[in-house]
Structures are given as structure tokens and as C-alpha cells.
């Protein structure tokens, strides 16, 4: 088992390494000279040269990559040209803010998704199941900004005027100090993510409930509650961990649009800004960060899958 986990770990590290190369190479293709972009109208050849020197733009590409990578590994994410400061400072508060959004959404949507999905699976074929399936199918189709805008129209501007539609913390204050501002962004993410969890949970549970071992448990006369919790749910835990991981990983990327929509001061909004400003190192850092979250979350899901599966956990009898 340890070997399998280590193997997965190694693969994850390799994937991240390749991602880092990809991201680095991609940003090399950026048009325009970052030094010139920083200096803007004050660009004289001398100052450009000096800045290029300072930014190590004149050393070979591979060396820049290793400089950058060793920086990233030691926690130095580089220099943001548009804010003229370190990427660390730029992202420090934003990572926290995004995490708040991410964790709040995950903590709300996961249990709801699991419970509703299971409930729907138990009642498969009945009206309530059809309603749940229909709803989740419809909502799952909607792009996040459509849900977000709809929520704004519904709760903020036009129908009910209850909640703020933009995040408006004075700079420097943590986002969670104004919880009402978190409601709509979190709700949007919850609505985006929950249908997927519901659908996957429902499908998995229907399959598990139709499996031989659950049928056997029922034929043993085991009460339905125990059948569900002892026989059905543990079998679903592997796939469900995968789904949750996938959704968490999705959230890491999905926050981009939602943060932009609600003016939420997280890394997603920072990414859009950086793309607009062609702020190379910020784009690099955020992309790598999101990819990192993605890979780590998936790794965790795999580990959960390995640990909860007795077949993988124990030796096979010879």
C-alpha cells in the first residue's frame, strides 16, 4: 500500500514539474518585453537594459526556469510587474480569501450533495428522485457566471434586495469580517458544485444498492439503515472521494469566474488582472498554485481510495 501511495506521490510530483515547465514556457511566449512593460512611458534603452539585468531577462532560458523554480520552491513566487511588488505580497491575502471561499463552498456542498444524492438513489424512480435529478441536471448545465448573475438579479438587485452583490472590504481587512458579502459567491459555487456531487453520488449509490453484496445483505434480513451505512456507503466511499476531490479541484479553477463576478479579492480575480496586464510571474504563480491544488487534492482522493479499499490495503491470499 505504501508503495502505491509513494508511486502516486511520485507521479503527482512529475506532473507538477511538467506543468511548471509548461507554464514557464507558455509565459515565455508572451509578446512584449516585461521590462518595457514595467517602465511604460519612462522606457529609455538604458533603463530597459538595467531592468532586464535586474530581472535576469538576459540569462539563458533554462537558467531562468531553474531560478524561477527554485524561487517557487523556496516560497519566492517572483515579481509582479503590474503592482511593482513581490508576487508573495500580492497573493498572501488573496490565497486566504480564496481558501475561505473554497472551503466554505466545499463544506456546504459536500454533505448536501452526499445526502441528497443518497436520498435520491434510495428513492430511485420515484417522483422525488425525478425532481432531484431534473434539478441537478438543469443546474449542472449552467455556466457559473450564469448562476452568479441569476443570483444577483434574484437576491441583490431586482427581486429581493437582501444581499450585497460585490465584495467590498476596505483593503486589508479579511473577507470573513463581512459574512453577508460571502453569501452570494459561496452560494454560486455551492450551486455549481452540488449538482455534480448529487449526480455522482446518486449514480454510485444506485449501482451499489443494486450490487450483489447489498442484495445479499438485504436477503440476510439486515435492516435497511444498516444496509445503507454498513454495506452500501463504504463501497461508495472510493468513488465519492474521487468526486469530491474532482469538485474541490474544480473549485480551485472555478473560483476565477466567481471571484471576477463578485469582485472578490482572491487569486482568481488576481489571475484575470494578471492576464489583462500580462503580468507574467503572477500568471505563472497562480496557474501553478491552482494546478498544485488540483494535483494534491487528486492525490489525497487516491490515497483515500487506497486506504479505504481493503483489497488494496491488505495482501491478497496466495
Amino acid at each position: 500500500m505504501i508503495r502505491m501511495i509513494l508511486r502516486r506521490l511520485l507521479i503527482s510530483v512529475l506532473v507538477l514539474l511538467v506543468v511548471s515547465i509548461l507554464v514557464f514556457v507558455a509565459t515565455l511566449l508572451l509578446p512584449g518585453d516585461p521590462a518595457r512593460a514595467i517602465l511604460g512611458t519612462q522606457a529609455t534603452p538604458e533603463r530597459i537594459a538595467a531592468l532586464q539585468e535586474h530581472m535576469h531577462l538576459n540569462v539563458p532560458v533554462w537558467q531562468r526556469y531553474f531560478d524561477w523554480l527554485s524561487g517557487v520552491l523556496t516560497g519566492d513566487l517572483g515579481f509582479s510587474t503590474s503592482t511593482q511588488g513581490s508576487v508573495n505580497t500580492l497573493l498572501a491575502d488573496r490565497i486566504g480569501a480564496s481558501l475561505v471561499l473554497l472551503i466554505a463552498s466545499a463544506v456546504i456542498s459536500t454533505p448536501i450533495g452526499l445526502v441528497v444524492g443518497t436520498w435520491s438513489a434510495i428513492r430511485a424512480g420515484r417522483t422525488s428522485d425525478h425532481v432531484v435529478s431534473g434539478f441537478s441536471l438543469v443546474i449542472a448545465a449552467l455556466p457559473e457566471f450564469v448562476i452568479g448573475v441569476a443570483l444577483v438579479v434574484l437576491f441583490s438587485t431586482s427581486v429581493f434586495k437582501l444581499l450585497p452583490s460585490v465584495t467590498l472590504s476596505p483593503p486589508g481587512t479579511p473577507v470573513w469580517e463581512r459574512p453577508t458579502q460571502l453569501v452570494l459567491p459561496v452560494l454560486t459555487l455551492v450551486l455549481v458544485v452540488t449538482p455534480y456531487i448529487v449526480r455522482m453520488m446518486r449514480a454510485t449509490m444506485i449501482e451499489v444498492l443494486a450490487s450483489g453484496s447489498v442484495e445479499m445483505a438485504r436477503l440476510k434480513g439486515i435492516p435497511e439503515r444498516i444496509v445503507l451505512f454498513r454495506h452500501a456507503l463504504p463501497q461508495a466511499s472510493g468513488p465519492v472521494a474521487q468526486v469530491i476531490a474532482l469538485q474541490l479541484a474544480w473549485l480551485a479553477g472555478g473560483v476565477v469566474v466567481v471571484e471576477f463576478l463578485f469582485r472578490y479579492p482572491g487569486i482568481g480575480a488576481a489571475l484575470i488582472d494578471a492576464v489583462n496586464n500580462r503580468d507574467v510571474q503572477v500568471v505563472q504563480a497562480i496557474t501553478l498554485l491552482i494546478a498544485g491544488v488540483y494535483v494534491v487534492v487528486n492525490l489525497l482522493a487516491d490515497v483515500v481510495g487506497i486506504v479505504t479499499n481493503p483489497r488494496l490495503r491488505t495482501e491478497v491470499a496466495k
Partner: protein
Amino acid sequence: MTALDVTDLHVSTVDDTPVLRGVSYSIEPGEILALVGESGSGKTTAGLAALGHFRTGLKAVSGSVLASSCGGAPSDVLALPEKQRRALRGRVISYIPQDPALSLNHSLRIGKQIAEVLEVHGYPGSVEDRVRETLTEVGLPSDTEYQRRYPHQLSGGQQQRVGIAMAFAWKPSVVVLDEPTTGLDVTTQALILETVAKLAAEQDTAALYITHDLAVVAQIAHRVAVMYSGEIVESGAARQVLHEPQHSYTRALMAAVPGIEGPVGRSEAEEPDEDVVLRAERIEVSYADTKVLRGVDLAVRRGESVLLLGESGSGKTTLSRSLCGLIEKCTGTVTLDGNPLSASARKRSCEQLRDVQYVFQSPFSSLNPRRTIAESVEVPLRQLTDLDKDQRRKRVAEVLEQVRLDPEYADRLPGGLSGGQRQRAAIARALVTTPKVLVCDEVTSALDVSVQATILELLGELRTELGMSILFVTHNIALARHVADRIAVLREGLIVEQGTVDRVLDAPEHEYTRELLANTPKL
């Protein structure tokens, strides 16, 4: 007093297609009733109905299922409220499933799974002791270490014993066994049957034994009920039904069962190396660390039929595929008429490919579901011959006729054909290039026994008509006299015994062959 009394049971699908049409049977304590039928006859539905369980998509329409616990008044399982019905299950009526690998919970230790059935119904004594006891009863170790194992740490036979232990833990008055030995080799099957019979007798349990295998029935059942398309067409004492069947279906069924005694063995004198078409020497195949074939020598003579006998895991499919060039990593030599064949079909010439053909085990998997039968049969011609379109079409029609397949099926997709018809089409595809050697890999094991008989008959006729050689690969020794001239017995990658059919069946030399013959149930 009757332990289980099923009366006029009607079951249909939710959209009202009848599945069971008035099934009635009863079993006395200590009696074993075999419910026999081919696939789709409704026997499993009838068995599960005894526990008041209907699979998704099915519903009970009418009828009653009266079960009596030892000494208690009979109660109608179907009419009981859910809670009381549940109280009966596992305690008064228990169930042993077809495939323990699918039915045991893989995330629970086996001890726990057995204990569970005792706990949920409130076992009066010590659960721990009873678990140990039942494990011993089914012939498994009962120590704590063993109880802490997970199902995947057991072999198939052991898993099925755990299933039996669960079923007999409460000493139920009725046990329903749904093809409990399918997929097990004959030796294990014999042990399981013995255990079941012993426990039923000891505990005075009424057993409903669902099976398609008439030979097994002869071995275990007191009485037999034969099901055909949702009805019991004939029932009675085992001996009577098996040997003096009344109903035409039963008679046909009995006739189709290949007996190991069979007709007459077409035995000729053993004259090795005479006119060998296909010869394999020192064939070895390994996957990772496992040697599947460990140096096999085999020869097939012109016009001869050789039965390659082996249980699952013996390497018989690997061997037959190696001969056809489907196992690229096999070593050793395969020669056709003295000319060496490449291990890879891709490197064999068209002529070589035409001369050695292969029929797959499952006709459900060997035909592309997106091609019509005619298209599938045409493929070898298109790939391996220079015939033009018209010639090909003519040849396809010809060969379809040879396998007695109605031309109207030619333009259908495999989905529109029955299993037997599909297998005929698959055989047609193999014959379309008039091969010198036809390798048939378990071609009947996916088919019902009545269909099996017709396919075997067809193969026999074709061999005579076309004069080709057949390598008939099977696990079922009972087929030997029906199809083969010679037998080669494969065990763990080695041929342990070869000889004429009569010689091997009548005077087996190898211990393993003897064991196989002993454990094979006979009618």
C-alpha cells in the same frame, strides 16, 4: 410438515410482461428440491421469491409463499409487512448466491459478516461461538485470524463456504441456493455439494437448489422441478424426472445433456506423427512472474479432432490462442504442414491465416455488434483473399448455409440473434476461408445445454463434410466422446496426459485425470 410452500406464484416485470406464470412447489424439511431450467426460464426469480425479494423491475402479481420456522405456524412471506419479512430472512429462510465474489461485502471481515446475520436477528446464544461453529461446519478454519480476513483474501471455494456458513448460521428451515457452484472447478464443486447436502440433512433444512446443470441435480437433489419460460413443466422425484421424463421439454433437455459415457468413441490406433497438420512444440508463455504455459507439445493430425481438456487457469485458452498467433510473446515453435508459423498473426501470411481459424468462447463478444452477420462473416475474405465483392457475397451465403443459419439473418445485427445463432455465425466466419485447422475455444460454455448439443452436432457434421481438423478446447470432460478422437489434458501449463478418448476415459493414467473423472457429476 412443509417447510416452504409456494402456490400459484405470478411475477411480472413492472411493465406487465409475465416472468413467472403460476409457479407452485413445496419442500419438506430436510429435502432438497432442484429447480432446473435454462437461462431465462425464471428459476432465479422463483428462488428469490421464496424470500419475498424481487429484483428491480420485477413485482409479485399474485400467489403465496408460505414458510414455517421450525415448529412455528406458516406465514405468507409476500403478505407480511416489510419488518416481519425482514425478520424471517437470514433466520428462517436464507440464501446462498451464485457468485460469492460479488455477494460478499468486500469491506467487511468475513467473521463480521457471519456474525452480522446472527446479531441483527438477536441470536440467543453466544454469537462468537456460533460463528466459530458454523465455520467449522462448512470446513473452514474458525480461528480469529481467519475470521479477520477479508473476502478477497479467500479462494472462490472458500468464499462460497463463507456464504454457506452465513446461510446456515441460524439453522434456517429453508435455504435457497442459486447456482452456488457455477464458476468453480469440478473438484471444488463436489466438496461444496457435499457440504450442502450434509448441512441440510443435519439441520433438517429444506433446500431449494437452483441450477441448470442436470448432472449436479442427479447428484444432490431428492426431487426435481423443471422450469421452462416461467412455468414448472414437470416435477417429481429426481430419479423419475431424470430417467423417465414425461414432458417433451424435459425429454429434449435430457437428450441434450452430454453424458460422459456418450456414444461410441471414434478411437483409432495411436500412431503418432502420422500426417500432422498443426504441431506445437515447447510452447511457453509467461505473464509477469507467472508461467502460464510451461513447455507444451501438441499435435493435431489431418481430419482429426483433439479435445484439449483443462480447468480454469490451466492455460488452455492461452495455448489455443498461441497457436493462432494471438499471443505474441509465446515462445516455442508452431508448424503448419511442417512450415513454421510466426507467433504474431500480423506476421503470418494470408494463406497461413486462412488455414488456421479460431472460434471464440462467447458469441456475444466475438461478433462486432455494429456489423451485420454477413459483414462479419465477410471480413476474413476481405482481408485474406482476393475475391471480389460478388464472389465474397456468394461465399458468405454458401457458408451461412453450411452452418444452417437462415439467410434472413444475414443482414441482421448480432443483437437480433440468439446465442446459438450467433455462435453459428461465428463458426461460419471461421469456416469461410476453408481452414485446415479449426480451433474451438469453449465454444459451447456460454450456451444453454440444448443449444450446446446442436452446436456440437454441427461441428461434427462439418468436420466430416470438410475434412478439417478440430482442436476442441473445453473444461467439460463430458463432451469428449461427443466431439473428439483424442484427448490432451492440460494442467497448470503442462500436458499431463494424452491419448485416445476411450483410453483416457476408461483407463486414465494420470492422478489428475482420475480425480477429474471421479468428481464429474453423472446423470
